[in-house]
């Protein structure tokens, strides 16, 4: 049984979703219907964070969200982090820190770090170690042992603060 066609707004673009089942997860629709396979499916139960995306700026596991529930909201996926082709600060930081190994969990981690830095930039604070760990503890990475990821967050936070200082000046 197909649902009525609906529209998802993803990375600033409206996407028609015809012929979908109402029970399809946002992750499934992103990957299989919209051709956005950056978000990864690794547990389908909200335990690993590989499918993390932002809905209206809030970090969610897209495997646990019905696609139809995201209608009328702004979905941001890994494909939306660097829309103009230039790597975003968090992406640059991950590359510079050596925080990527197999790269399967990386898109979800990047979305989590981006969300964290967005939240912190609201009050201009510097993330302490525990804040970073808590913010990213929902994202499993099996390759890196998390060491370089911690470093990447620190680099990304520096870049973002630098940029916002630049904006002020």
């Amino acid at each position, binding site marked *: 049984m197909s649902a009525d066609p609906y529209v998802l707004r993803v990375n600033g673009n409206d996407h028609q979703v015809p012929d979908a*089942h109402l*029970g399809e997860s946002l992750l499934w629709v992103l*990957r299989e219907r919209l*051709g*956005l*396979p*950056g*978000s*990864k*499916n*690794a*547990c*389908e*139960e909200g*335990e*690993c964070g*590989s499918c993390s995306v932002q809905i209206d700026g809030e970090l969610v596991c897209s495997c646990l969200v019905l696609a139809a529930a995201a209608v009328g909201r702004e979905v941001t*996926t*890994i*494909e939306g*982090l*660097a829309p103009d082709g230039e*790597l975003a600060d968090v*992406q640059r930081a*991950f*590359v*510079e820190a*050596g925080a*990527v*190994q*197999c*790269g*399967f*969990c*990386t*898109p979800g981690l*990047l979305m989590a770090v981006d969300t964290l830095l967005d939240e912190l930039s609201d009050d201009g604070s510097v993330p302490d170690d525990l804040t*970073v*760990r*808590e913010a*990213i*503890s*929902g*994202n*499993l*990475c*099996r*390759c*890196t*042992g*998390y*060491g*370089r*990821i*911690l*470093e990447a967050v620190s680099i990304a936070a520096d870049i973002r603060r630098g940029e916002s200082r630049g904006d002020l000046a």
Partner: protein
Amino acid sequence: MSEQLGQPGITSTSILGNPVLRREDDTLVRGQGRFVGNVPLEGALHVQFVRSTAAHGTIGSIEVDDALAMPGVVAVYTAADLGLDDRPVLMGFYPAEMARPFLARDRVRFVGEPIAVVVAETQYQAADAAETVWADIEPLPPVLGLSDALDGENLLFPDVGHNVAFRNSVEDPFDFSGYEVVVTENIVNSRVAAVSIEPRVVAAGIEDGRLTCWASSQGAHNFRKAVTDLLGIEGEDLRVFVQDIGGGFGAKGVTSEEEVMVVHLARKLGRTVRWTETRTENLTGHVHGRAQEQKVTIAGTSDGDIQAYRLDMLQDCGAYPRFGAFLPEFTRQMASGVYDIERVEVEYTSVVTTTTPVCAYRGAGRPEATAAIERAVDLYAAEIGMDPAEVRRRNLPASSAFPFTNATGTVYDSGEYEMVLDAALEASDYTGLRAEQQRRRDAGDNRQMGIGICVYVEITGFGGSEYGEVSLQADGTVLAVTGSTPIGTGHLTTWAMIVADRLGVPLEAVTVFHGDTDRVPSGQLTGGSRSVQIAGSSMGDAADKLVDLARDAAADLLEAAPDDLVLDRGRGAFHVAGTPSASRSWAEIASEAAEPLVGLSDFVQAGATFPFGAHIAVVEVDTETGQTTVERIVAVDDAGVIVNPLLAAGQVHGGLAQGIAQALLEEVRFDEDGNPQTSNLADYPAISMMEVPSYERSFTETPTPLNPLGAKGIGEAGSIGSTAAVQSAVVDALAPFGIRHLDMPLTPERIWSALQASGA
């Protein structure tokens, strides 16, 4: 975080040893990795396996008619009509009757074993149809405990007459009665899961008239050989692509029954089919690692001279003996670890149980050896009242003793064991740590400190070769083709560095190609930490061969004798010795040479290499709750010459985390009926960022003489050292309560219970 990375600019003549950023990352951070699940396959059918919910039983009938009538269902098969013979045992010395049917035939032997397969137009349809397949299974008693399996009262394979897959016995066991000090302990090396974040995934279909497969495997050619052998077709009849893989850790070195079936189904149906397992299938139906019961006996003098060691092992193979049955052989080879012990004896028996099959997991048999000997040395040190660091130091072979033949006959190529131990002790401020520990003990602090030391050696590379081809392209760039399969390890970057260095061309001029069995003539499985030392050496060797060919070509062009030409790597040009102006650059040779220049490697590594190191773990144990916090991990690792310290350190980090994970958190569990208790990531506590400390690590570099790079393997070492160090640290924290040993995982519950039992 203290890191010793090579400093860009200091090694001005060579890029090797520098922390070069990965060329793989640009696509990965954009979410554009070429994972199998991202390959667009129009109209692909979806495969769903129906799995046994019983650990052991005989199959009466399997009803598939309802499934066949479901919307979108294309086919449903059971063992009766799948059309595949049973998969022969992996090793000729396992009982042949322990062959595994692709779909269970007559009998199921573990929860999660496939009993039927559904193919449908969509994944949802396949899953719905699979739910309607009904199997009549008459339960049999599960076989779970390893000694029960050995007793053989209940058999998985009645035709065999016992549950033993493989054993190694000692004819005339050694008598320990004459030694001054003898200590024994029973140790469980817990069963764990690899948990690659990308689960198993495979797709297959007919492309351009060829059977083609996209696999997430640790070896494209191994995968092809396994599949084509089992399907009874020629190797060239199947093209296998392996591009990005979302983690391997040994588990994806297995070409699993499901993957073989998917290729079979594509061939049978003439359609493109794909299968992505769920996390539950990954945790119950794929493979597990470790799963050994060990008994250690260690003997020596009261002043710290270890004289004899015996290791008895019962290896759990799970339901079908794959590589798991052979793991204790690696444990045997490395049983005595870093120590110079006169007499070492190892016996083992590998038994089948009604559980998920056991296979290689990061380290594969060597972490088990290290965990056992390091626990034994700690127990011996405690028995004679000597500091565990001092006992270790007294029993290490001197650096002049290398190549060193250990008591089980394994020859260690090179080593500086005391150096790494001293470095780790110093970096950790061992004396200061012991003083702080004593202070807390004296104060009866409810946060006790534990210090664990592990000095490890491991075996990597195992000798052999790898396909390596380096050719000069018409545009002056270089194409490097390898038979190896990178598994998220950044080797495309490492190999490009090696080739660029040998040729004297910019890194960007080197393209590395891999993972297409049509283009690459042969390839080996990525495993045993071989990819830099063997695949890297073959890349370097092929580059050297290209240099020789290019020198000849340049000599022709310059009308000079080849012997008179030198390669100026700084300029990327050959010139006549003493006359730099008479030269030909790589680009000039490429455009002017009479024929394409292709260097092919014939490098063969004569044997295994033996990286080593010392890890010190500092933990805090809350004696009221049993909660352990890893405060510090100090790791000094020596994997010979390091080509890219950024990537090598990343390997160590990942290994350290997986070691901490096994020591403290992770364990695959079954209930008394053989039902998995850890079948998802809520129940299987894969380590997160909350449980790891900032790593304090460094490399020392003791080259191996066995390859021109001087490199040994680093992929597994982290997990080998840290597991034992963290376990040792926790036990050390509990020493004041009279606790001398606890098995992994050292969960709060286990520690709290032990403290309660001790009367604390």
